[in-house]
């Protein structure tokens, strides 16, 4: 048990290599998708489709990386990232249109679109995007020019971490200090009141927040392809888009909170892998420990929040 916990620690935060190449590499997609989910939830949009939006971004980035490099040259990488972000936004856009035009609950549409995206990837890696020998269900590797540079030969950490952290700060500032951010918060807090003021275009604000969260998830997918996997596979994401919901909630839906929150989940994921590898813990047990720790963290936070609100109200909880 002790050696298992030690492996969990050593494989997540216990060494520089584990921290940069295990935890931080996993934190990049979690930061971006978690940030997207936080923004959407703050605007009152329950986008639980980050997984599908991430896959849409991965597909677009792969397509650009494979077929655009001849024409685009050094511009391939930025174009692939932008294409991935736009594809994520477009995938979220389907659900946004369904909600605004037809009143379809986004909880259902975004969830379902996750499966559509996963099946679309399955089709593409056996069809149009399959590697040229048509043996394996995966795409070819994208050329070096389309890849995000790594920080050095001794690490797998790539420049995606910079993009993710900068975006977290930009979004945090936007949300707190700009009129657009204020509208998002107002609509999320009370859409009827926001509408009644006559100065907040409620449906436009929700649509934009929706598209923006898809944009971030799509970018996460594009970064995963250009920075980590270099090719499109069926099981590209271990459920980053779902963990993103937990990341956002643990962050209290605060953009800056996403940074530590994503690190916690990425560290758990990375440490659980090390627990299997170095301590011989069966994979299922590693997942159980991981889930137990998540519950413990969330539970402690809930207790604290309850204690705080009880203190504020001046009475027992």
């Amino acid at each position, binding site marked *: 048990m002790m050696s298992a*916990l030690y492996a969990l620690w050593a494989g997540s935060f216990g060494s520089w290599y584990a921290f940069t*190449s295990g935890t931080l*590499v996993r934190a990049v997609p979690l930061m971006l998708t978690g940030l997207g989910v936080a923004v959407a939830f703050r605007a009152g949009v329950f986008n639980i489709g980050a997984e599908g939006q991430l896959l849409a971004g991965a597909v677009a980035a792969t397509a650009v990386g494979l077929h655009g490099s001849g024409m685009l040259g050094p511009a391939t990488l930025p174009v692939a990232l932008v294409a991935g972000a736009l594809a994520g936004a477009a995938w979220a856009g389907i659900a946004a249109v369904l909600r605004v035009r037809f009143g379809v609950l986004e909880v259902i549409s975004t969830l379902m679109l996750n499966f559509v995206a996963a099946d679309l990837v399955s089709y593409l890696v056996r069809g149009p995007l399959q590697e040229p*020998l048509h043996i394996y269900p*995966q795409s070819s590797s994208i050329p070096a020019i389309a890849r995000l540079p790594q920080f050095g030969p001794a690490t797998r950490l790539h420049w995606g971490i910079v993009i993710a952290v900068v975006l977290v700060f930009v979004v945090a500032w936007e949300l707190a200090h700009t009129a657009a951010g204020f509208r998002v918060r107002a609509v999320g807090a009370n859409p009827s009141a926001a509408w009644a003021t006559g100065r907040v275009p409620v449906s436009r604000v929700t649509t934009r927040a929706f598209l923006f969260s898809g944009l971030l998830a799509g970018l996460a997918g594009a970064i995963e392809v250009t920075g980590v996997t270099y*090719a499109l596979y069926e*099981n590209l994401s271990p459920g980053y888009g779902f963990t993103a919901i937990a990341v956002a909630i643990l962050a209290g839906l605060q953009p800056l909170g996403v940074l530590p929150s994503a690190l916690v989940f990425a560290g758990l994921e990375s440490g659980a892998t090390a627990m299997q590898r170095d301590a011989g813990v069966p994979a299922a047990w590693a997942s159980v420990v991981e889930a137990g720790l998540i519950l413990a963290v969330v539970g402690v936070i809930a207790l*604290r929040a309850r204690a705080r609100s009880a203190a504020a109200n001046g009475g027992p909880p």
Partner: protein
Amino acid sequence: MRAKQRFSTAFNIAIALALAACSHGNSDSGRSSASDFKVALLTPGPVSDQSWNAGAYQGLLRIRDSLGAKISNIETKTPADFEESFRQYGAQHYSLVIGHGFEFQDAAKRVAPDYPKTVFVTTSGNTEGPNLAGLQFDFANPSFLAGMLAGGVTHSGVVGVIGGTELPPVRESFAAFARGAQFVNPKVRVLSSYIGNWDDVSAGREQALAQIAQNADVIFQNADAAGLGVIQAARQSKNVLVFGSNSNQNDVAPDVVIASVVINLPHAFLLVANEVKDSTFRGRVISLGMRDDVVQLVLNPKLASRIPAPLVTRIDSVRTAMLHGSFPGADSAASPAR
């Protein structure tokens, strides 16, 4: 409220102490490992699947028991995990690291040059390098024999194949199975479906029940953990037989599993591990099949009475012809791209 806060602080301190304590305890025992021959296995799914991954794990245990290796294994989830685990094992000076599936080969190719003292092997892979090998199994011949058996015992004239996902070796094996069935019974109809994953037991059962509803009475499954659902479906239905795959699954359900196409992964892994241990290893694509005793059709003795004797004789004669290289039927159209 204060009590709660104090509790959580105490709790945090306790965890920190526990971690510190075990980090001391462990660093000593970790360094003084007994053997320098270290072998690691990466599986794409749980080693409890009684099939593809279980066989590989048995192989790892065989290497430990026969060669005294120190072993480690990990179930990877995504392509990002593949490279990370390969690198970790390389950095820890493992002698042999086996990625158990074609999907590991890109990562192995990227990592291998950085750790020249570690040998990387990918099962079903076709990439090679100085310290990199692909390990290929000839499924086609034994699958053809399985097909002959299926074609001979079916009453309805409809047989089925059910796969996890449409991987190249699975597809080739199913094609050989279909040719084998039609070899003994030209009128036989072959239904084919894929579950879409390798671990959803109930989805495997649904696919099998759907084929049974279309009159299939012999089903060849190759779906790892999900394949156990196919076996369940056969047990629920009357007079349906199934074939096991990868591991010997005859004992999983002796009443319905008529035979298994077995890859003797322990044997195959041991062959490779021996080369690595003796430093006779050369990077190449290693191809193993019936002739090496690695892939076999193993009949279930408990259901032997269901197989007509002339059919057994016929299968045996085709098997002999295959071993002598004088039977081209099984893989006539296999691996078109290679």
